[in-house]
C-alpha cells in the first residue's frame, strides 16, 4: 500500500518535471520565433487621426447631382481610358486594350506588346496606344497598323490626343508634348522650357501629365507642377492658361495637379486630382461648377483617374484600384 503511494508520488513528481520542462521548451521556442521575426511593440492601440482628413473633406454644398453607373472591364491593371465618336469605351491595361459598349458589354479585346500607358481614338477611328516610350496605331478590329519611333530614349508617355491633322503625345520624363503628323512623323515640341525667354515650360513632378483637344482643334495641356491648364494653338504656340494651387475646391491641390482632365462638348472642363481625390467640373469660363465625386467615394490612395467624355456629355472616370470605369451623367453638367 505504502510502496504503491510512493510510486504514485514519484510518477506525479516526474510528470510535473516533464511538464515543466515542456513549458520551458515551448517558452524557449516562442522566444526564438519572436527573436527571428524581430517585431516589437504593442500594436493594439489605434492610430491617431490627423487633421489632414479634415482638409480632404468634400464640401457637400458643391456636390453636383449626378447619376453614377459602373462598368467592369474584363482586363486587369487598368491604366488608360478613351471614348470614340460612337460612344464606345476603350480601356488599356496589362498588355491589352478592351472595347466595350456604353452598357459595359464586352465588344472585343486585343493584345499589345507592353503595358498600356495612354489611349486615344483618332477622328479616323484608329486606336492610338501609348506604350512606355512609343506610340502604336491599331485598326478598330485590333490589327496593328504602325509602330512609331520613340521620340527620345528616355521618353515616358502619359497621354495622347489627336485631331485630323496632328497627334500630341505628352512625355512626363522630358516634360514636353511631342507633336506628330497623323502618319507618325515627328514635327516638333510643344511647351518647351526656354530660359532666355523666361519660359518655365511644363513642370511635371510625377508621372501625370495630360493633354486634350478643344472643339476648335486647339490643344489643352496640363501643367501639373504649376497647377494650371495651358492652351496652345494646334501647331503648338502658347495662348493662355488658367488654374491656381489650393486645397479649397476651386484650386488644384497638392504638389502637382490636375492629374487628368477632359473637355466637355460645351467647352467646359472635367478635372481629376490625386492627394485629395476629387473629380470637378469647371465651366468654359474656367469657374468651378461643382464637384462630381469627392475623396469619400474613393480609395484613400486612389491615383490615375483617367477621364473621357462622350458626345452626350457623360463623364467616364477610370477607377484603376478597383478595376472599373465609373460613368457619371446629368443634364446640367
Amino acid at each position: 500500500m505504502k510502496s504503491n503511494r510512493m510510486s504514485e508520488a514519484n510518477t506525479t513528481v516526474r510528470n510535473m518535471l516533464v511538464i515543466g520542462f515542456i513549458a520551458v521548451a515551448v517558452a524557449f521556442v516562442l522566444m526564438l520565433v519572436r527573436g527571428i521575426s524581430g517585431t516589437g511593440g504593442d500594436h493594439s492601440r489605434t492610430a491617431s487621426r490627423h487633421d489632414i482628413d479634415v482638409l480632404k473633406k468634400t464640401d457637400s454644398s458643391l456636390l453636383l447631382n449626378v447619376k453614377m453607373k459602373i462598368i467592369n472591364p474584363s482586363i486587369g491593371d487598368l491604366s488608360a481610358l478613351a471614348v470614340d465618336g460612337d460612344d464606345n469605351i476603350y480601356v488599356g491595361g496589362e498588355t491589352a486594350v478592351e472595347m466595350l459598349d456604353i452598357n459595359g458589354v464586352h465588344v472585343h479585346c486585343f493584345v499589345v506588346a507592353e503595358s498600356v500607358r495612354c489611349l486615344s481614338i483618332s477622328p479616323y477611328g484608329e486606336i492610338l496606344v501609348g506604350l512606355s516610350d512609343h506610340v502604336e496605331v491599331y485598326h478598330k478590329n485590333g490589327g496593328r497598323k504602325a509602330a512609331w519611333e520613340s521620340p527620345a530614349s528616355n521618353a515616358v508617355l502619359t497621354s495622347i490626343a489627336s485631331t485630323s491633322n496632328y497627334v500630341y503625345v505628352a512625355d512626363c520624363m522630358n516634360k514636353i508634348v511631342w507633336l506628330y503628323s497623323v502618319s507618325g512623323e515627328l514635327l516638333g515640341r510643344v511647351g518647351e522650357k526656354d530660359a532666355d525667354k523666361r519660359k518655365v515650360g511644363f513642370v511635371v513632378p510625377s508621372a501625370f501629365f495630360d493633354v486634350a483637344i478643344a472643339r476648335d482643334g486647339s490643344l489643352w495641356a496640363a501643367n501639373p507642377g504649376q497647377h494650371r491648364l495651358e492652351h496652345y494653338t494646334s501647331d503648338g504656340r502658347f495662348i493662355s492658361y488658367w488654374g491656381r494651387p489650393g486645397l479649397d475646391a476651386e484650386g488644384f491641390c497638392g504638389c502637382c495637379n490636375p492629374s487628368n482632365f477632359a473637355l466637355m462638348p460645351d467647352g467646359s472642363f472635367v478635372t481629376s486630382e490625386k492627394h485629395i481625390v476629387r473629380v470637378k467640373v469647371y465651366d468654359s469660363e474656367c469657374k468651378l461648377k461643382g464637384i462630381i465625386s469627392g475623396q469619400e467615394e474613393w480609395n484613400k490612395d486612389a491615383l490615375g483617374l483617367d477621364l473621357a467624355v462622350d458626345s452626350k456629355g457623360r463623364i467616364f472616370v477610370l477607377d484603376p484600384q478597383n478595376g472599373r470605369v465609373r460613368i457619371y451623367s446629368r443634364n446640367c453638367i
Partner: protein
Amino acid sequence: MRFTMDTDIRGYGEKPKSRREFFRFIIRWILLLLLGLFGGMAFVRRRCSLPGGPGNGKACGGCPSLAKCKSPYSWLAKPLGSRRTVWQLDPAKCIQCGRCATECVLQPSAVKCIHRFDMCGYCKLCFGYFQPGTSVLTSAAENQICPTGAIRRKYIEEPYYEYTIDLSLCIGCGKCVKTCGAFGNGSLKLQVCHDLCVNCNECSIARNCPAGAYSRVPADEAYLFKTS
C-alpha cells in the same frame, strides 16, 4: 518492433497503464526532441554548403553575405547569435503618430527625417515645408510645418527649390513626412539613424508604435525606404 499496450517502451521496467498515457508519453518526447532541435540550431555553428556562401565547410556566420543569404534554409543555417541586428522603422507602415519624437530614450530622438532626393519634385510649393493652405510662399516661421526649422529651402531655378534636412535640428516628429506623403511625392521618410541610436535591447519606440512599424533588421541593411 511492434508496440502493444504491454510493450516496455520507457525502458525502465514500467508498463504504460492506458492508451492515454501512451500518447502523453509520445507527445512529451516529441516536444523534448523539438527543444533539442531548436536549442541546437541556436547554439551550434552549422557548416555552410550553400552556393554563394563560403562553400568550403566554414562555420556559418563568417560569410560577408550572411544577411543576404537566399537559401530557403538560411534561417536554419544562421546561428542567431551571430546575426547583428538593429532597430529600424518601415516607412510603408508608419502613420507619423509623433511617438518617434517622444518615446526614444535619447532626446532629441535617434529618429530623423531623411530626404529621398530621387523621389522629390523640387516643388516651389512643397507640402513637406509649407503649412497646408499657406498662400504666400516665404520662409517665415509661421508658414513652415517643421516646428524646429530643420528644413532648409534653397532656390535652384524657377520654379524649382531644393529641400535639405538639418539633422541636428530634426526631432523626428514626422509632421513634414505626413504632409509630404499626403499632398506630395512622399520623398520625406522617417528612419532610425544608426550613428545616434544606442540599439536598446527593447526599443522604447517600438514598444509604443501604434503601427507596428518597428522591427529588427540586419545591421548591414539598416535603412528601409519605400520607393514608390
